[in-house]
Structure formats: structure tokens, C-alpha cells
């Protein structure tokens, strides 16, 4: 409960543009102290990263935030901050200028102490061993996403603990890189005269590309003179099969797939099977700036009252997806109706 309180306070102060040091002081004043161990609940690490690369971090009693730069762990210069009323408890403040490719890794001591009590790691695998594991992994996969690096570290730590965690484990990674754009094109344009314009926009877009909709993908194939074929590799009775078009990362069916994407984003749980919806969720999660170009032509057959209620109109489904991407997944989005 105190961890949630601390995290909520930190987030609120940061989103309210409160200075990081001031926020940390207020939290320190508010946290109760354990009578036996004389340490306060709970420990915390706050990172405030600005778009120009200036990163301020302030930490209390957690393993130090790890900076990985050019494949190696780099020492961060920290300034201790204490107040007489904190009774010897000390915060550590640091400011760094992040460079493209840098990664910051934040962990709780449940991770650094993984393996505690084992014959080969009586005190846990330790901070340095954890850092070496991370740098080795990044050497093997230099473009590994922050999400995958966190998951990698967490699964390693759980394995060190014999597949049952001895303490709670938290891990967060921040990867400083250029934003990855994704263009999602769905629905035929309202005026067919604009088909060519949409196709050219897709062709010239610098980033990942997804086309959702049978008619939409036929329009793109026709306008750009690209071959398109159905991929019947894995038949999924729930989600129509995807197609293959050169230069396009994903070609899927429209409404059923998008409705499933909205459902997955809402639940936060991505099913393990590979279909149009799970692949689109993957693409979205790997991207930062997602641009939707939405054709508003309506297929009258989809309005047939005999069709299931779940077959919602495209714009309603997209409204749900956009809201989730902005509020829950913190993506930048842009929508153009055409």
C-alpha cells in the first residue's frame, strides 16, 4: 500500500511539473519509518526525463539506477541529500545528459537479491552480476526494446530464485532512441477519387505500415500495383487470416481484427497465438507515434441487423483504441478521416 502511495505521489508531482527534488522531499516527509529497521517505507526511484535528453533522478534505498551506455555499465555521479528531520536517511540525486542508445534500468532489491540462499549465490546474484547479464544480453541484441529487456531481466531473476520469487520484483527500463512511427490505414476513402492519394501517402510514409481491411488492401494493391496474397499458414477461427503485400508490415481484415485489438489493449493481456489482432498489437506496442488514416466509406452489408452486435462500426472501435493508446499506453496518436 505504501509503495502504491509513494508511486502515486511521485507520478502526480512529476505530471504537475513539480521539481523532482521537492517531490522526493515531500515523499520522505510523508513516509513512516519502520521501528525495528529504522528505514522508511517505501523505497523509491524517480526518473524525470525531458525531451532534450536531460534526465534527473532521485533515489532512496533502492539498488542504484543502472546506466548502460555503449554496451557498458557507466557510473552515475550522485549527490547525497539529507535533512536533519529525516534522521540520517539519505536521498541520492543525479542529473545526466542522455545519449541516443542509452538505457536506464530501475530495479527493486528483489531482483538484485535473486538467488539468495543458494549455494553458489548465498547473498543473491548481486548488482554487478545483474549488470553484466544485461550488458551481455544487449551485446547479443543491441536493438532490444525496453519492454523486452525488462521481461528478460525479470525472467532471469525469477529463474535465479528457482522459479518462485523470494521477494517482490520490480523492473523498469528506459531506452533513449528516436520515436518509431507506425501508419495504420483502415477503410476505403469516402470518395473513391481519393484512393490514389491514400495509396501514395502509405507508399511514402517513413516507418512501419499496417493496412486493415480486405477492400482497403485491394485498393492499395491496385493503386501501387503490388501483389497481395492471403497467408493461410495459421488458420484462426476467431480472427480472419492476414495477407502478404511487399513493403507492408501487416495486412489484415478490418472490423473484426480491430475490435479484437481494442479488447486486447483494454485487458492488457496479449494472447499467445499469432493472428492479425495479436500481430497488430505487437506493432502498436513497438511503436511510439501512431498515425491512423481512416477511410469513412461504410460497407452497407455490415449494417445488416442479422450480423452480430460485436461488429461495431469502424469509427467507434477506433475511438476506443485511440483512447486506450493515449491514456493507458502513452502513445502519440494522430487521426485523419478521409
Amino acid at each position: 500500500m505504501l509503495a502504491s502511495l509513494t508511486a502515486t505521489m511521485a507520478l502526480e508531482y512529476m505530471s504537475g511539473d513539480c521539481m523532482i527534488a521537492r517531490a522526493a522531499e515531500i515523499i520522505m516527509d510523508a513516509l513512516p519509518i519502520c521501528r525495528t529497521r529504522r528505514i522508511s517505507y517505501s523505497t523509491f526511484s524517480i526518473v524525470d526525463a525531458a525531451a532534450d535528453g536531460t534526465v534527473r533522478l532521485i533515489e532512496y534505498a533502492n539498488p542504484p539506477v543502472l546506466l548502460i551506455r555503449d554496451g557498458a555499465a557507466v557510473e552515475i555521479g550522485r549527490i547525497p541529500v539529507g535533512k536533519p528531520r529525516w534522521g540520517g536517511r539519505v536521498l541520492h540525486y543525479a542529473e545526466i545528459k542522455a545519449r541516443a542508445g542509452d538505457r536506464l534500468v530501475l530495479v527493486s532489491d528483489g531482483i538484485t537479491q535473486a538467488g539468495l540462499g543458494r549455494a553458489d549465490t548465498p547473498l543473491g546474484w548481486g548488482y554487478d552480476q545483474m549488470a553484466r547479464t544485461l550488458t551481455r544480453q544487449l551485446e547479443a541484441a543491441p536493438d532490444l526494446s525496453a519492454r523486452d529487456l525488462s521481461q528478460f531481466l525479470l525472467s532471469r531473476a525469477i529463474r535465479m530464485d528457482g522459479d518462485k520469487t523470494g521477494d517482490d520484483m520490480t523492473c523498469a527500463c528506459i531506452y533513449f532512441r528516436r520515436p518509431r512511427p507506425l501508419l495504420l490505414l483502415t477503410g476505403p476513402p469516402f470518395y473513391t477519387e481519393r484512393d490514389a492519394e491514400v495509396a501514395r501517402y502509405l507508399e511514402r510514409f517513413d516507418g512501419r505500415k499496417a493496412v486493415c481491411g480486405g477492400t482497403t488492401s485491394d485498393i492499395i494493391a491496385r493503386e501501387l500495383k503490388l501483389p497481395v496474397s492471403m497467408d493461410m499458414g495459421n488458420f484462426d477461427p476467431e480472427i480472419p487470416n492476414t495477407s502478404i503485400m511487399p513493403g507492408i508490415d501487416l495486412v489484415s481484415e478490418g472490423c473484426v481484427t480491430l475490435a479484437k485489438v481494442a479488447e486486447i489493449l483494454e485487458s492488457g493481456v496479449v494472447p499467445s497465438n499469432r493472428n492479425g489482432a495479436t500481430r497488430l498489437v505487437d506493432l502498436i506496442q513497438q511503436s511510439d507515434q501512431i498515425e491512423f488514416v481512416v477511410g469513412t466509406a461504410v460497407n452497407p452489408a455490415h449494417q445488416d441487423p442479422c450480423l452480430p452486435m460485436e461488429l461495431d462500426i469502424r469509427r467507434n472501435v477506433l475511438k476506443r483504441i485511440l483512447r486506450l493508446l493515449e491514456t493507458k499506453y502513452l502513445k502519440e496518436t494522430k487521426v485523419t478521416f478521409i
Partner: protein
Amino acid sequence: METIRIRICLGTACHVLGASQFQHLADHLPASLRDRVQIEWTRCLGLCREYSGQDQPPYVMVNDQVVTRASIPSVLACIRTQAGD
């Protein structure tokens, strides 16, 4: 012996009204026709824009013949007709 071309629509309306049942169509073909039938899946045949009322999805085309409200038995019946059985 001419090949009989089957095109199954996997568009949105066809999918939600049961087109996925045709993944098993090949298993239902009589042995005498198995070598003559070519099954293709399409993103959308576009037929839902032309048909209405009782002529609902899913749609399957057997050569040039459209089977509306298609089911495995109705598609098999159409294949047999086209084969002259």
C-alpha cells in the same frame, strides 16, 4: 476433366457469419472430385455489396456460380452440379 475453382470469401461479413467452417471443406470432398477441385481463399469477393435480403453471407463461388448463405453441404451440392455428377 476441367478443374472446378472454389473461391471462399473471408471478408468481415462472411467471417462473422461462419466462413471459417470451410477450412474443413477439403476433408468433405468425395474422393472422385478431390483432384478436380482447387480451393482458394480471398480477402473479399465484394458480393455483400451486391446481394441483400435472404442472399446473405457467407459467400462461396464455385466457378462462376455464387453460393449464398453457404454451408459445407450447399457448397458440396454446387460442386457436384458443376462436375455433372
